[in-house]
């Protein structure tokens, strides 16, 4: 047994990954954090008062968990989905009827998305109510607001992908609202000074055309699966890093 243990631990691969033995003392604990990129993002210390559920509600962490679930299920769904007008809807039907574990994957993704939107809003509410947006955390509040918007955009772009009536009309309505943007939308005020028409306004940019069609589907797909998750991940890294740098998870003042 000991031999086996030694064989596993005393070789180059193990060492290259873990570097050193772990002994439960302050130095090794610190070293473990120094040597781990993920724990770099995590605060060094978490006070007991900070992990109490009734203060933070754990909402930030739960949001992150939802994001991870959505990423994993989303990647699986991408294997079965073609973002084309002909195939999108039937691919979704196939996920429901044909693909092994397709139903649970798709439902996890869908309900997970709803869950994340709700949870991220509660997170924001909590941060606001505990005053955690105040100095020194103003910058992180700003990042959080951007992440909130990105979450909504993920939700919005994902809505079109099943290519059903619900999504189609939701995107039609949503992008038509874009058409009323001041200056940039062809129906918005002052747009005539910029010579904005239905064919060069912000709605056109969103849809890749003047109507919700194949291009809009492709754009939604790219935004939903690549662009926004990438941006959100980078911002999340910054968000977590700033939590650490701004003095760890916020906690009751007088503690």
């Amino acid at each position, binding site marked *: 047994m000991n031999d086996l243990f030694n064989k596993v631990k005393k070789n180059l691969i193990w060492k290259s990954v873990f570097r050193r033995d772990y002994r439960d003392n302050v130095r090794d604990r610190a070293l473990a954090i120094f040597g781990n990129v993920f724990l770099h993002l995590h605060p060094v210390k978490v006070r007991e008062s900070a992990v109490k559920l009734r203060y933070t509600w754990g909402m930030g962490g739960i949001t992150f968990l939802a994001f991870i679930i959505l990423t994993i299920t989303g990647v699986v769904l991408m294997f079965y989905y073609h973002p084309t007008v002909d195939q999108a809807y039937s691919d979704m*039907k196939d996920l429901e009827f044909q693909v092994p574990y397709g139903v*649970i994957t798709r439902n996890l993704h869908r309900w997970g998305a709803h869950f994340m939107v709700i949870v991220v809003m509660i997170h924001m509410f909590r941060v606001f109510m505990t005053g955690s947006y105040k100095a020194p955390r103003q910058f992180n509040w700003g990042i959080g607001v951007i992440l909130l918007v990105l979450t909504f955009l993920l939700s919005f772009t994902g809505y079109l992908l099943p290519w059903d009536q619900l999504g189609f009309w939701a995107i039609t309505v949503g992008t038509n609202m874009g058409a009323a943007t001041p200056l940039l939308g062809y129906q918005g005020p002052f747009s005539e000074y910029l010579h904005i028409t239905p064919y060069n306004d912000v709605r056109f940019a969103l849809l890749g055309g003047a109507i919700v069609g194949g291009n809009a589907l492709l754009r939604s797909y790219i935004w939903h699966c690549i662009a926004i998750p990438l941006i959100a991940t980078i911002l999340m890294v910054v968000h977590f890093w700033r939590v650490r740098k701004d003095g760890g998870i916020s906690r009751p003042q007088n503690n």
Partner: protein
Amino acid sequence: MANENNNKSPYRAYLFVFFSVSLLILSAWVIWNDEFGLRPWKHYQKEYKSLKHDQLVNDYKKAQLEFHRSGGAKRLADLKAQLSKAEEALKSKGVGEKYTQLSNKLDELQKQASDNQKKLQTVRGKYLETEYFFTKTQKPEYKKQMDELQLQIDAIDKQGKELQAKQEPVSQSMSQLAGNIPAIKAEIEQLNKILEDKKEKIANNETAPIEIKQFLIKDIDKADRCVSCHVGIDSPKQPSTKQPYTKHPLMSVYLGHHDPGKFGCTFCHRGQGRATTTVEKAHGKAKYWDEPLLKGDMTQTSCLNCHGDIKNLRGAESITKNTELIRKYGCYSCHKIPGYEGMGDVGPELTQVGTKVNYTWAVDWLLDPKKYFSTARMPKFYFTQDQAEAIADYLFSMSGSERKDVDIAAVKNDPKLVEQGKVLWSQARCNLCHATGGRGGDHSKVYAPDLSKVGSKVNKTWLFNWIKDPNKYFPGTKMPRFRFTDQEISALVDYIANEYQDDEAESKYATPQTIQAESIKKGKDLVQQYGCYGCHKMRGMEMVQVAPSLKAQGVTFLRSDEMREKIGTELSSIGSKPLELLDFGKLKKSIPNDRLSYIKQKLRDPRGFRLGLRMPNFRLSEKEVNELSAVLYGFTDSNAPVRFMVPSRQELDKMAGVQGYKFTGDFAKVIADVKCTNCHTIKGIGADYAPDLTLAGSKLQESWIRNFLANPDMIRPLLQQMPKLGLSQAKNPVKVTMPKFNLGKQKVEDTNRSDVDVVVNYFQQELVTTDIPKNIPVIADVAMPEQIAQGKKLYDDKGCIACHQIGTDGGAVGPNLSNVGNRLLPGFIFKHLENSRKFKSDIVEPNYGFTERERVLLTNFLMTLKLSAK
């Protein structure tokens, strides 16, 4: 620190355990559900397999029994014994051993030879290579090697030949000894195969995988997984008649002509082809799936997707019957329906209606047509008394200025004329088309009005003019012009006026009353609002020519008063109209929200959905509602690919630039007058109520035609006895005879030929085919009486008598032949005996495969069957 609050609260551990166990159970359920819960087809396929297994085992057992019974088993044992004997004999002589020895040696030599050949090739390759690279410096040692090898090969060859020569006698003697061993082996194999095949089938069924099965058709975007549960849909030997294991009904027609691999299932049956998780979802009964499954006869509605012409289409009988309703009620008058353009008006022209009917009757009719006679086709518009009067005022104003009724009490009919009229009435067979009080009206497809109360509807003057020349009042009517004399018409009119009275009829306006101008205006507005002009022509609302620019936009015709095509909604794609576009109005909660229910409800109660709807109520029976909705449900924009399309004859002709058949010359005038095509089909035009006359010229004798037209009910008794074989409802043999049109009494307009001459001439010129010869071959070696006797013998031998009647003997399935010698031309009989289906495809007569000589004999015999004309 985290380990400082270890085990502070033990309830957290329980919570942790609880959630862990829940998650574990949940995960287990997910796996189970994905494997079985969501894959019910696995169960069906297993069940099917076991049923199939039972069936195959049964088959095998039967075959085994049969094998034993027919002596197959014994024969097999015999053969085996013979085989072992023969093999024994072969062994004992030692020939086999010798043969094997020689063969082995030969094989060895062959191997050596081929080895050497290979070596030679390698060396030659090297030799050629050096020659190629260094043209001059050839290597002599290669050349030497090659020569050596060649010598060796030659030696081996020689040796081989010697050996073969030695082997030859050995093998000869061996094959002599072996003798019939190969034959025995072959027979054994054959016998074994009978059972082996069955065994293999069982094994194949055993190993058949349980999997999703589907038809994937890219260009109509179908992935129909129906066969995952309906496994045996295309296997002719069904293991069970229970769903979902049965085979497709009428397989040769439906699947035979529509390969599921190309058409899939949902193209005809609708439903959700991709769904596999529940029966409801697969059958399209799920929410938000607009295409529920079509079952049984209802599926025939899908024939309309591709088939332009469903008449005579096998497997589309029900839908063909149903489409007749569209013609009956003239849906196309108010709704645009593809394929029903230019169908003509359903109702009579109304411009002169004031000269025809009584005012009181007109108002009553407008209020409720079914009150006058129950089979009335005109729908109920729910007019108020005022509205009905206004419309009647408007209609009457076109031919006069008064509301007026005939005073029925004052009408006098001459009893002598009435008596004469009664005879004429039956001679003309008025009852064939017109029902009177529940009697007659058998020829239902001409939709002639019920005449039981006509005496109180129309006035005698109009009736006289109508019978004299129907086309004059209503061009395009189906009513024929009988060639009555004026005196005869008077008699008929008096008879009708006397016999068919409505005792309850009132004559409110026996003293005429002037029509008010504002009432006329109101009536005109109503006529426009409700689109009466859809079915009835009337002055001021005729169709007008459409300008080419409008035509380019798809406008086909306009009414002069309003710039619109048809008053009703276009129905060309009602069967696939998105559900959101159907307004269920106040019935949203009370009827199922699907397309078919909407159509049915609309037909039942057209104005029930909300206020302001204009469609009148046709008061269809529930049966008619179902039938009509089946047709309407088939009007879809199915996006069927061009390769599915089966255009109708007319469409094909149009594409090919072929003109449809048209009657020409004087015969066209006769047809327009007598309306032969109401009952007969001629060159594809007309109805199937009476015999097809397309080849009448080649089939019938001239004298018979003349006699028949003069006295239709005397010469032709055969149809009177012929039951329709249950092809239609088996009524008691109805006396169906042709009306007496009194042809021959008058000359055709602008000519001095009698109409009988015209008809006979046209038959002989146009309605003939070169397939039927004028004369039949002559048999010279036998005298005529002898031939006739031989023909009679053939008639008796072949059992013609079972179906045909001569005199009083024989069956009633086929036509009576007592007078056939007077009726048919010998050429037709001769050809008919060769292939009876050639001229009439639905005939039941079997094909006896007569020789030409036999046919001549039979024809000669049949031509002697003549009744003397009375």
